[in-house]
């Protein structure tokens, strides 16, 4: 690195270092909050320990209790139960520098995940908000200092006085005795080095964990073969391991579909969308009560097993109670496919009545085109913009991207991807879609999904004479209903 290189780095770090971090709305919290009211009976299944070997009476950790209370919908209750069952390890390790003390109070580690709780205090023992800590390093190693690469993904959640560090997939290593290394290099505006090494072990939780075979296979009408391999039970979660692959007929169909979207996707040619699907599962008990989904908490990305989308995947959920019987239910297959929607209209006609287009079993109704509608939270403020409101009746369509335009291409202004809607006027001018809404209203009498879409464009300042709206890709959701009983570990007497 030359001297100039160093100066560039230094300059950028200096400029960026002066910025105060703004607050951001977390999409998952918005959704969790909205869903809370409609799911009052959603997660009433109480998990208990799957092993009764450890009958320790341990009071509920206030730290984890605060954690559980902190969440919108009471999620991560399973951590609380794991603590109640004695799987949490008290740590109370601390380091003090520059008047600030960083302390790790507790670690809960099982083969599915590791959660460590930390706090920061000043010289007067007042709590400093955990987000003031700039974390410089998080690593899990074995006792010899070898980094366990499986745990490389970590996340931070802050709530009031506590920070919650979570690491994924410790169970993929065979090591039982591990060390968490946690380092920060700045608290508030004070630079320093706060480094902690915390030994912990997975022995107790590994003993209380069990993997059981399932071995059930199903092929969806769309040609996706699903093989449920096994279920893993652990103190903080359960997880089903399954494999997916396409039938030969489905592979050919996917190749045809890829040709239709050629040039519109951000991938090298030829590109076939073998992997571009999602399976929606849920687990329910004998009363039909749903068990909470934990797939994201457990970080379960797919792994390629072979070519053509043959992959190994996992579905994670809250630990199961031996007092109930459970079924894994496959609800739907969601797949992105070429799906053409095209409607032209004269905006001034909308003054009289909506413009309705019926074509190939699809109905689109343009309701209005207005300017200066209220802004949504993701939009720039105080700028004139157009809003087009349309209603669509489309079979199986679960989602159409509102906007996803990548504008950059190598040294040109060419648009290389346009996954969302395209708005074009009579002169060929394209107005970028810069925001909008997507609302599923329900089903019409023909069984089609009734969808309300709002498209906003900050590029459009005047009413054009003619407009065309087009969209070429959509997500289709195919309902499925495959149910498989889940094997449970036998209780130890």
């Amino acid at each position, binding site marked *: 690195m030359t001297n100039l290189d160093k*100066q560039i780095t230094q300059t950028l770090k200096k400029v960026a270092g002066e910025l105060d971090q703004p607050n951001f709305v977390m999409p998952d919290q918005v959704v969790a909050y909205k869903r809370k009211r409609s799911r009052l009976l959603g997660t009433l299944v109480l998990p208990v320990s799957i092993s009764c070997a450890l009958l320790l009476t341990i009071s509920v950790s206030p730290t984890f209790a605060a954690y559980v209370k902190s969440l919108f919908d009471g999620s991560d209750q399973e951590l609380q139960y794991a603590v109640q069952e004695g799987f949490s390890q008290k740590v109370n390790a601390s380091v003090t520098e520059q008047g600030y003390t960083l302390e790790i109070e507790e670690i809960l580690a099982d083969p599915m995940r590791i959660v460590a709780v930390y706090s920061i205090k000043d010289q007067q023992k007042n709590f400093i908000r955990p987000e003031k800590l700039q974390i410089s390093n998080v690593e899990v190693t074995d006792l010899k200092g070898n980094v366990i690469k499986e745990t490389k993904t970590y996340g931070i959640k802050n709530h009031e006085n506590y920070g919650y560090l979570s690491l994924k997939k410790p169970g993929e290593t065979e090591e039982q005795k591990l060390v968490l290394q946690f380092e920060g290099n700045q608290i508030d505006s004070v630079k320093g080095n706060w480094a902690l090494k915390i030994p912990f072990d997975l022995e107790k939780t590994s003993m209380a964990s069990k993997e059981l075979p399932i071995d059930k296979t199903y092929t969806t009408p769309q040609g996706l073969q699903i093989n449920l391999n096994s279920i893993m039970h652990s103190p903080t979660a359960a997880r089903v391991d399954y494999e997916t692959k396409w039938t030969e007929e489905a592979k050919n169909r996917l190749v045809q579909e890829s040709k239709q979207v050629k040039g519109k996707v951000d991938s090298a040619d030829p590109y076939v969308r073998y992997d571009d699907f999602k399976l929606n599962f849920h687990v329910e008990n004998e009363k039909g009560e749903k068990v909470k989904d934990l797939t994201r908490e457990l970080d379960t990305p797919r792994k390629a097993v072979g070519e053509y989308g043959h992959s190994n995947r996992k579905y994670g959920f809250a630990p199961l109670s031996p007092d109930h019987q459970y079924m894994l239910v496959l609800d739907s297959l969601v797949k992105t496919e070429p799906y053409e929607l095209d409607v032209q209209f004269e905006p001034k006609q909308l003054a009289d009545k909506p413009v309705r287009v019926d074509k190939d079993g699809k109905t689109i109704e343009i309701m209005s085109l207005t300017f200066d509608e209220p802004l949504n939270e*993701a939009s720039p403020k105080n700028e004139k913009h157009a809003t087009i409101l349309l209603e669509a009746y489309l079979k199986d369509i679960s989602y159409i991207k509102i906007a996803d335009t990548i504008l950059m291409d190598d040294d040109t202004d060419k648009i290389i991807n346009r996954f969302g809607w395209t708005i074009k006027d009579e002169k060929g001018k394209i107005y970028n879609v810069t925001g909008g809404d997507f609302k599923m209203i329900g089903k019409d009498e023909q069984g089609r999904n009734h969808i309300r879409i709002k498209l906003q464009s900050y590029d459009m300042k005047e009413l054009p004479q003619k407009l065309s709206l087009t969209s070429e890709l959509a997500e289709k959701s195919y309902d499925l209903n495959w149910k498989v009983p889940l094997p449970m570990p036998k209780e130890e007497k």
Partner: protein
Amino acid sequence: MKENHHFPIPKEGGPVDFETLVQPHLNSAFRVAFLIVHDYHLAQDAVQEALWEAYQSLYRYDERKGTSFRAWFMKIVTHRALNMVRRKKKTEEYMDSIDPGQNPLESILQKEKEQQIWRAIQMMTPKHRSAVILYYYEEFSIAEIAKILGVFEGTVKSRLHKARKLIAEKIEVKKETQVITEMGVIMHD
């Protein structure tokens, strides 16, 4: 009936622990967006949009493709920030609109050379600037930057080369002017 979700749309059965995944990268994401856009509120909007987009398309993130979550998220942030620059104004107009003398951040750059570097970075086109920021500030590799920006590695190299040249020229010009001024030549032109 499904609920109404604001833009963009979270997927059904979507992640509930998205924050845990994204939180470690938010700080630098905002800074990268700011360094590209040069506007606190637009950078904030860019990152907020990126959060929605990342949340919505999280299931598409595939670790086995060799991209870290950080790089995947930063790709979205970078493009959102670049779109924000575009949305604001065309590149040339945007460059003209920057008045280096009015930039309060310059007061924290004590050394004159740092100020020159920052001005040079501000005056670059967004595509050169984004390469510089990802390379020098975020310390991504050339290969990672190529993936993030959706260009060839050679293109990244040439953009960085050009950017370095622009910065070096800016420093040189300033140096020459200084020398001339010190000699009093300009005074008697």
